[in-house]
């Protein structure tokens, strides 16, 4: 008996150690990026890197702005320096630059937010209703439909990218918000239907039957009974769908240039454009991490339940 318990304790300890090691390995790049984004300009390319430094937000300012270098001999006067805003002073002190206008990031960031939030909402709306239909009604050729829906996910984006590009050009959807939203919805709905159908299948039909005899219509029963009980599944699905859209690079790269360009499509360019301003790139990446992180933290309870629930089912 004691032997068994000891073994169990030992196994637990090993599992914990392994998990900690994995977590650290996974966190290294993340830590590196966040760390780099706060380094002052002069420190970034120093090798070996300084362990202790004065953190600076200059990199964040740089990623948000377009700037020009003060020509030699035209340094700002004492008075001008005094009149500068804090932001301007930070930039000047670190890189001897003057802020010209707002940069490209805010626009890209907004694009990403608009496209991802809207496409996630539409995906969840379509996915939930479709999953409900597949779960509850005798749809003809249900299994074939379900497979067909899934099969839309089997092609890598790079392969469908060019045909989609040509089609989008014909209907004027290139470099438009609507185009990317439609595409992400089309791509994500399959995943959403599959996952949500699993969740809805688990909700006993008797609840809806009860609502039907209690005087509610089918749709009301769906809204008042099925929806509240599938929040967990919906939340988990929404996080996955959002993160997919947020990270999506291939389509965004091929289909957007300007108006609707998203952060992942834009960020890589900046490394060259900024003259290898790693600080700014790291700052952009750090900012880029925030929305999925916030979403995940907000929905973490649902998420853990949702994922483990999915795992328990065959």
């Amino acid at each position, binding site marked *: 008996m004691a032997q068994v318990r000891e073994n169990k304790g030992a196994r637990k300890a090993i599992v914990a150690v392994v998990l900690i090691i994995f977590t650290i390995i996974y966190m290294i790049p993340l830590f590196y990026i966040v760390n780099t984004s706060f380094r002052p300009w002069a420190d970034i390319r120093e090798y070996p890197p300084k362990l202790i430094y004065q953190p600076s937000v200059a990199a964040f300012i740089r990623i948000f702005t377009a700037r020009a270098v003060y020509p030699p001999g035209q340094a700002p006067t004492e008075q001008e320096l005094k009149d500068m805003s804090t932001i301007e002073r930070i930039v000047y002190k670190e890189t001897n630059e003057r802020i010209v206008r707002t940069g490209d990031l805010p626009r890209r960031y907004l694009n990403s937010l608009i496209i991802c939030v809207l496409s996630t909402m539409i995906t969840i709306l379509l996915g939930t209703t479709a999953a409900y239909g597949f779960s509850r009604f005798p749809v003809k050729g249900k299994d074939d439909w379900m497979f067909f829906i899934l099969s839309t996910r089997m092609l890598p984006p790079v392969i469908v990218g060019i045909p989609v590009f040509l089609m989008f050009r014909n209907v004027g959807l290139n470099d438009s918000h609507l185009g990317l939203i439609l595409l992400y919805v089309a791509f994500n709905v399959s995943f959403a239907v599959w996952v949500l159908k699993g969740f809805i299948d688990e909700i006993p039909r008797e609840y809806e039957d009860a609502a039907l*005899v*209690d005087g509610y219509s089918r749709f009301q029963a769906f809204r008042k009974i099925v929806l509240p009980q599938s929040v967990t599944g919906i939340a988990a699905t929404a996080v996955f769908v959002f993160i997919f859209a947020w990270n999506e690079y291939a389509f965004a790269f091929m289909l957007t240039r300007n108006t609707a360009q998203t952060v992942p499509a834009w960020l890589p360019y900046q490394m060259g454009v900024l003259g290898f301003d790693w600080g700014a790139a790291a700052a952009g990446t750090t900012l880029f991490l925030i929305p999925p992180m916030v979403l995940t933290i907000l929905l973490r309870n649902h998420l853990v339940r949702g994922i483990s629930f999915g795992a328990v089912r065959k």
Partner: protein
Amino acid sequence: MVKKFGDFTAVKELDLTIHDGEFLVLLGPSGCGKTTTLRCISGLEIPTSGSIILDGVDVTDRRASQRDIAFVFQLYALYPHLTAYKNIAFPLKAQHVPKEEMDKEVDRVVKMLRIEHILDRKPKHLSGGDMQRVALGRALVRHPKVFLLDEPIGTLDAAFREEMRTELKALHVDINATSVYVTHDQEEAMSMGDRIAVMNAGVLQQIGEPHEVYANPVNLFVARFIGSPGMNLLACKPETGENGQLGLRMRGNNELLELPGTLQQLLKEKVERDHSLVLGVRPEDTTVHTAEQEHSLAAEVYVTEKMGSYHIVDLSYGEEIVRARTSAYVDMEIGQNVRMSFDMGRVRFFDSESGQSIMN
């Protein structure tokens, strides 16, 4: 009505009239189509053919929500995300009943069911009995035309089931609403029903008052299914004895059982000569004698089950087993040779081929 699922017929040509204010029990073994019948009445299933008439109006094409029927489901189906109060008020919400009136109505059923103290709890924090009461409350709150109850106390433990049975019956007496109550427990059916409808394999076997179904089952299925233990069924054949009287040649020990004149008359009228019959007799109409007895058959004690206030003695009679209910003060030994006799006024005869009673 008829209800098929694909090729499978779950309910076969059911023709059932339920009276106003009646407590009808739908009784049958698991899988015989009881739930399907209720679902058709409620509008959750559409019958494959036939029609459902409620208060003289054909409601076959109406949706469940438009039928004004309350359904208490087998596992209660309480909405898990709503409190007991909200569960009970849920049907009223559908009708947009104003808040004060809703509170009043909920209060009424809550008082009736004595569940004031659990109104804030969600279903997962309720005991089986309380869930049951909340489910009843949800049905009672809106004065429906009909109550449908699908094995509502089947999952409760035995002692509590008894209590709920009484409570449900009292409730029905109070509100006097037309109710259809489904159960597979014949005892429950006997004790609760104004009338009992016995179903088997999708077919309605017999409908009648409990004592009628008990005393005069229309076929062998009902005879076996009703009663605990069910009716004793003995294979036999009418035969004219040496004295010229009609008797029964029992297959068990091949003895000739003498019959009273009324039964002789009946068999003469209803049965062709040499036709195999099944004699049915209730355990309580079977008497065991340790001494010689007229009109009796020889049997051997097989087992005695002590039920407390009475004993059930299993007698082996040839290949057959006959159960007799005896007083708790009678002691019998296993293997003891005894005589058994039947209350001839209460025996029933069935056609051994069709299984139908020949008494009607």
